[in-house]
């Protein structure tokens, strides 16, 4: 009996000490990590639509939900546009893109925030040379040239290009639907919410 207890207790002791230590470290780093996450997102949004305040909108669509932010000028509170993140599977990873559009749903800018595509090929999607191509496009132009759209695909990385482009187009459609639905529901004088 003593033997069992001894082993159990020793392991218990180590676990307790280790856990306590971790819990403590966690208590310190957790807020920091959370803050970094938020800050990152904010920075990204800020970069896409400068000088704006963002307001989060969550919409339930069936089982899932989409989240987007409505951007208003910090000073004038004027509606500047929307930002959102879109994701789709590319060549070898999930490609996550943050995008901003103006109130007419034209792309203001995009930023690929998460991807693990092939370095030198798909991974080039984070380059500004690539992201610049999206500026000013309307949702129906958001298509790879091979599919009849306006986006010229990166050399050797059509799949990644498609992932970015198509995810944006689809997400815009969802956001647009929601925004338009909301607008339609609003009384006329509040056209600019």
């Amino acid at each position: 009996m003593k033997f069992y207890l001894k082993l159990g207790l020793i392991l218990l002791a180590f676990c307790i000490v280790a856990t306590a230590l971790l819990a403590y470290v966690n208590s310190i780093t957790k807020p920091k990590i959370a803050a970094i996450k938020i800050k990152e997102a904010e920075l990204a949004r800020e970069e896409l639509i400068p000088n704006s305040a963002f307001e989060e909108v969550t919409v339930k669509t069936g089982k899932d939900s989409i989240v987007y932010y409505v951007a208003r000028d910090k000073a004038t509170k004027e509606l500047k546009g929307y930002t959102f993140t879109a994701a789709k599977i590319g060549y070898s990873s999930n490609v996550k893109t943050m995008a901003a559009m103006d109130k007419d749903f034209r792309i203001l800018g995009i930023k690929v925030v998460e991807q693990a595509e092939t370095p030198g090929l798909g991974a080039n999607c984070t380059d500004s040379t690539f992201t610049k191509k999206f500026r000013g496009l309307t949702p129906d132009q958001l298509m790879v040239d091979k599919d009849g759209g306006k986006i010229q695909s990166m050399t050797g990385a059509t799949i990644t290009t498609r992932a970015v482009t198509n995810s944006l187009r689809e997400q815009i459609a969802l956001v647009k639907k929601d925004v338009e639905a909301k607008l339609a529901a609003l009384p006329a004088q509040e056209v600019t919410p």
Partner: protein
Amino acid sequence: MSFMKELTKGLIKENPTFVIVLGMCPTLATSTSVNNAIGMGMAATFVLVCSNIMISLIKNVTPDKIRIPVYVVVIAAFVSIVDMMMAAYVPDLHKSLGLFIPLIVVNCIILGRAEAYANKNNVLNSLADGIGMGAGFTLALTVVATFREILGNGTWAGLRIMPQTYDPMLMALLAPGAFITLGTLMATINLLKEKK
């Protein structure tokens, strides 16, 4: 004197990567760039040093039957600390090392040194061993990463080395390139040893 010896043996003579051939997974996965390599090396070294010290301290109170679980808990604790700290303070590096930070726990080098060395030696020597092995690991990682980054991206630690016209050999950054680079390095080391 022995301390110095323990400290330096991990660099060349008992290099954990090239000679003992342990901890291959992080070596290959994180040597795509010199920055990653150094980050991984530092993280592993930290864990290695801490766990070596800790284990040489507790070696006498752990019964044999639960030795491995106890060591593993100790190591896991340090790894988790590194993980959280890195997420909080060097988020970019944390992101690019990804899954491989928690996997330091099972990095064969760490448990290997715990069992092979710290388990049997005093704290001071274990410290030296930890530092030495960690440095050796970091060194090896950096060497591998140097080749891979230069070939695959034309840069070294982010600095452009190859001319702009260089069309990088992407494979160096991919899985096969990792294996082949390390394999070629090992063969070269064997060749040099043979010559001697």
